[in-house]
């Protein structure tokens, strides 16, 4: 399925892009993350949450296609 991924904050520094599109055949968010961990070596050291179609989801959620966002926490003020 077609997935559009947005990277925020430090995550976009690891991926070197704010956004990317890819075709993915897995079915769970966790599987997508494994693929991304392989693609981006430093990603596994990062804290982040995942949103699918503008809603925060657990990694055990089924992928529906559409928008995925990887959100790290920000501390700054």
């Amino acid at each position: 399925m077609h997935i559009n991924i947005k990277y925020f904050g430090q995550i976009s520094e690891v991926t070197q892009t704010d956004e990317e599109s890819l075709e993915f055949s897995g079915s769970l968010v966790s599987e997508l993350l494994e693929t991304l961990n392989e693609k981006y070596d430093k990603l596994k050291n990062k804290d982040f949450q995942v949103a699918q179609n503008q809603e925060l989801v657990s990694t055990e959620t089924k992928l529906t296609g559409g928008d995925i966002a990887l959100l790290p926490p920000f501390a700054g003020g």
Partner: protein
Amino acid sequence: MTNRYNRHIILSEIGQVGQDKISNTKVLVIGAGGLGCPILQYLTAAGVGTIGIIDFDVVELSNLQRQVLFGTSTLGKNKAIAAKERLEDLNSAISIIAYGKKLTHQNAINLFNQYDIIVDGSDNFETRYLVNDASIITNKPLVFGAIYKFEGQVSVFNYNNSPSYRCLFPNPPEKDSVPNCSEIGVLGVLPGIIGSMQANEVLKIILGVGNVLSGKLLCYNALTSNMSTLKINRNELIVQSVLKDKENFHKKEMDFNCEVQVNSVSIETFLSEENIQFIDVREAHEQPKIENSSITYIPLSELENNLDRIDKTKKKAIFCQSGIRSKRAVEILQKLDIQNCFSITEGTLEIIKHINNRHCDGGTTEVICSK
């Protein structure tokens, strides 16, 4: 016509009734830094009746790139106090209370209980989790904002059964996964945008108008001008676990990512002074033992259980085997709001040498090594 709040009052969504609500609300702002400055400016201008500002930090030159309440004239001043002075000129009709100290697990609950809405403008995860948990325990809405380089997040937590910060990010990140605060740059105007949005959420909560960002995380990117709003769900288990642990809340200690300023000084500083409490924070097995009635012996591991043995009326000179754990002890005591703690840079052996060299002085600090 010349009413200060005329431009609010003539809005049908606000009116005199809404303006009175603003005047009758007490808002506590955590941090008078990048986010705190615009939050405080606009809440003050809007006429929030009582505004509390808590910040232990002082104004530094590098703050002036974005912390617009300050200036050359307030360099070196405590931020809460400097902010209050500037804000009182902006609006003399409200009450502004400056707390020039650190927010801790010990003082948070009592402080939060005195306010209606909490706004988080802090700059480190430890304070953010402390603020979140204290908001849950005191049942106060929390207007959250945070920034990273060119990006910001805004949300309203603990509001009408909405999620909390822990429902979004359950635990503070591992230390090495997030850069230390002093290492990160930030576009100066970004906290202006995010902090103003936080002030806006405060006003919407007070007025009961519009859609408050509860159950939503707003993500803003200043480089692209993109804004996305993500839905967050409440995790009841997480919220309940914070509530269950509330009896222990005041015993918790913060573990700062951001360096705490510890006063490290040589033992020589204290040799000629009176009214010093020497504290040895080494563990029981460590040699050489020192036997002297004027030295308090509290191992670092036991420090927080022995606060009653620390003399609030004296300067505390803390030492250990090498000068490392004594620094840690000072950090802990400072976070507990215990003032006048100093870490002695020398290790125990050197300290004994220094003290015993003071032949002429028959003071109470003469030490005898046992064994």
